[in-house]
């Protein structure tokens, strides 16, 4: 049980929080990642991935309905006891912490690569820590508001991608399914990872004002994410030729080079400055969830101290092990592997357990 008074989030905040966590650093490399597996048919994988992600998110809502007044941590405590919950909470805190840390460092690396090659990642991380601390020390409501404002502030970027269609060749997309379904199925490995973040619903559910909207909200969030991914991927596919696209590291940014305005050259640098906001709506809620779990384990309400230490450790980690692209790739692979487990396998197993538990209980009552 927890006190949610004054911390409730509206349905819009709920939708855009989930959407914000889903769209982050991954979107910059997304067109290349799917094109490597399936060429220009990769966008079909995004739709299938959406389907799988939506089903899993609905399962999460079903689980949370069993214990509507608490987060996943309280639910674990309810079903498995205090100590098991503490261990589980610890594992979740570490998982979300790793996810946040990975996104945080990758964000800094992209910034360094695209805008500020002369500034060290260590310094960038300190810079990014300032707004992170200011926001994440607040409750989930404030973070939700931030996600909504950032969504409204950055929605115009999608319009740019639609605009870039004009410069491209629609023929690049044809023929459909040129090599059959095999390559498309291969992209699923990537395309279900890009939806990771809906599992934050585990934590958002008790704070939602109108809980009957939770299911529809999570579907809308996934759909918004899918539309954004589709626009960006298709934009990149029509602008670049099928072979060319895998040569760019971040085609999502590069594609903007084709847009020429009379008053701005190198539009992609200006857009990238706004991408920092998009990436922050992934990192900051993840960071919140991680430190929230940590303070829950220790039975504290205030989470600003764990947050402070999280940021300090991130900065020290970068100082001791300066990240490189190679290391980032290895890290990404490992993070993805853990993500399959936590975002897809864990909810389904937990749901099975909860269902069986319910059945047993009913039988014993009879």
């Amino acid at each position: 049980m927890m006190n949610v008074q004054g911390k409730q989030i509206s349905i819009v905040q709920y939708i855009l929080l989930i959407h914000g966590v889903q769209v982050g650093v991954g979107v910059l490399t997304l067109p290349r990642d799917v094109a490597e597996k399936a060429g220009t048919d990769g966008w079909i994988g995004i739709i299938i991935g959406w389907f799988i992600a939506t089903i899993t998110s609905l399962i999460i809502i079903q689980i949370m309905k069993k214990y509507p007044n608490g987060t996943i941590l309280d639910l674990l405590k309810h079903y498995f006891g205090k100590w098991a919950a503490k261990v589980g909470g610890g594992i979740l805190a570490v998982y979300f912490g790793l996810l946040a840390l990975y996104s945080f460092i990758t964000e800094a690396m992209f910034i360094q690569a695209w805008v500020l090659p002369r500034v060290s990642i260590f310094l960038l991380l300190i810079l990014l820590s300032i707004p992170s601390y200011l926001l994440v020390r607040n409750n989930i409501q404030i973070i939700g508001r931030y996600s909504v404002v950032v969504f409204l502030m950055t929605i115009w970027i999608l319009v740019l991608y639609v605009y870039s269609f004009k410069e491209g060749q629609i023929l690049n997309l044809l023929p459909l399914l040129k090599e059959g379904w095999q390559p498309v199925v291969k992209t699923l490995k990537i395309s279900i990872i890009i939806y990771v973040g809906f599992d934050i619903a585990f934590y958002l559910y008790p704070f939602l004002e109108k809980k009957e909207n939770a299911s529809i909200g999570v579907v809308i969030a996934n759909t918004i994410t899918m539309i954004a991914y589709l626009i960006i991927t298709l934009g990149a596919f029509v602008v670049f030729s099928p072979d060319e696209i895998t040569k760019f590291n971040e085609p999502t940014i590069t594609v903007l080079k084709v847009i020429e305005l009379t008053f701005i050259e190198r539009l992609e640098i200006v857009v990238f400055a706004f991408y920092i906001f998009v990436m922050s709506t992934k990192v900051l809620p993840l960071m919140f969830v991680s430190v929230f779990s940590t303070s829950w384990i220790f039975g504290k309400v205030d989470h600003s101290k764990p947050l402070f230490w999280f940021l300090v450790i991130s900065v020290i980690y970068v100082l001791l092990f300066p990240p490189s692209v190679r290391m980032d790739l290895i890290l990404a692979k490992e993070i993805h592997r853990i993500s399959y487990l936590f975002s897809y396998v864990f909810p389904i197993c937990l749901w099975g357990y909860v269902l069986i538990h319910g059945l047993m209980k009913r039988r014993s009552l009879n």
Partner: protein
Amino acid sequence: MSFFKKDKKELQQQQTDPNENSGPQTELISLDVINNVNEIQNIFSKTPDLVVTNLVIKQTNAKAALVYLGELTDSTVVSEHVLRPLLFHIDDFNEDSTLKVSVTQIKEVNTWSKVTDEILKGKSVLFMDGSQVAFLLDTGKWPERSIEDTPIESSIYGEHIGFTESGSTNIALIRKHIKNQRLKINDYSIGERGKTKVSLLYLDDVANPDLIKELENRLQKVKVDSITNCIILEEYIEDNPYSPFPQLLVTERTDFATLEILAGRIVIVVDGAPNVLVAPSTFFSFFKSIDDYTSRWLVASFIRLLRYIGFFTAIFLPATYIAIIAFHFEVIPLKLLMSIGVSRERVPFPPFIEALIMEIALEMLREAGIRLPAKIGQTIGIVGGIVIGQAAVQAGIVSNIMVIVVAITAVASFIIPNYQMGASIRLIRFPMMIMASLFGFVGLSVGLMTLLIHLIELKSLGVSYTSPVSPLRIQDWKDLFIRFPQWSITKRPVSSLAIQLRRADSIRPKEDKQ
């Protein structure tokens, strides 16, 4: 640290109770006039403007003494309406013991503390031999200014009456617009020595009672010698004292304050301040002006949008200039880059220093313009415009482009209708410039992010500051970036937390649709 602590201890030792000499607090006044006069002269020692007039009341033949502070009372009222009837007049029809004076308000008190307080507020006190009570006669007349046009928030079609320094006049000016018995006034006295009268004005069937209670609590917690201005009071009661943004709106316009009361907000009138506070205020209410409502709605919307553009320009234009010149010169078109290059050719400083020199010069000019008497103020304009602008460019200290940037920034920050908000914006510009000079566009992004986060978590009287954008309330957007026609706005803003959201039915007659 220890130094400060020691200081504090000394201060505590020296402090006296400000109300110590106001006489024995609860002690009653004596029956004897002479004793009373002695006591009052004792309390008001070294007070040359204390006037004590001994007299014999003709009606009852009783000895009496009239005591008042000469400069705070209206001498005509005292002589014509108090002394003359008492000394010469005999009422043959009513031979009871009521006081036969013709002043508007007579109060009876019997303790010394009350007597002292009221004398200091301009009342005359009449002690009578054999009477257990003293009579307080309302003869006060404060030195005050007449009602004038608003000097700071000027307007084109709005009314040309501003608040004055008298709290009661200000309340009357608001009542002139709201002739409704639902307009309630809560009075408080704040300040140990000043005893400033602070009044809350609200519509009791519209304003949220929780907000009134919260404001009441905050006012009662204020411990201070004297409140001389609204903005001083604001510092004591606002939610986040460390924020650069004003959290309560200050206005000197009676029509603007009236609109806020009608929207369900609370207006705080401080006696002695020529303006009032509005609570709760949102970020967006600082971008409203009364002329938005007195001009056509399309024009008003256009001007309001200009103000928001001005907000971002004033904060980010110099910083963007620095970021582009120092980091991202590839972003701007080649031709523009060439002309900037030519104009910066002779400038020996990095763009940050160049911008800082100009911005600081501009801020000094602005401040000098306010402090100087109006006649000399014009000289400053000439000095600023010609010397700093033209000569600095010719001397090669700053570039032409920089002068343009600074000029646009200044104009942009001056179109914000609220002076306090404009000043905050001018201040925030400096950290943004530093961020831009260190990290380019990334610094700007992080700066904007920090600004956004601060605004989102800020509250005014417990109501979120950025409402209705965050939390999102689309129904309030009718009077936000675009002002819809007056008759279409039928609801009060949700951000005022009003308990009654529907306004009086504002239906436009439609007979012209034939």
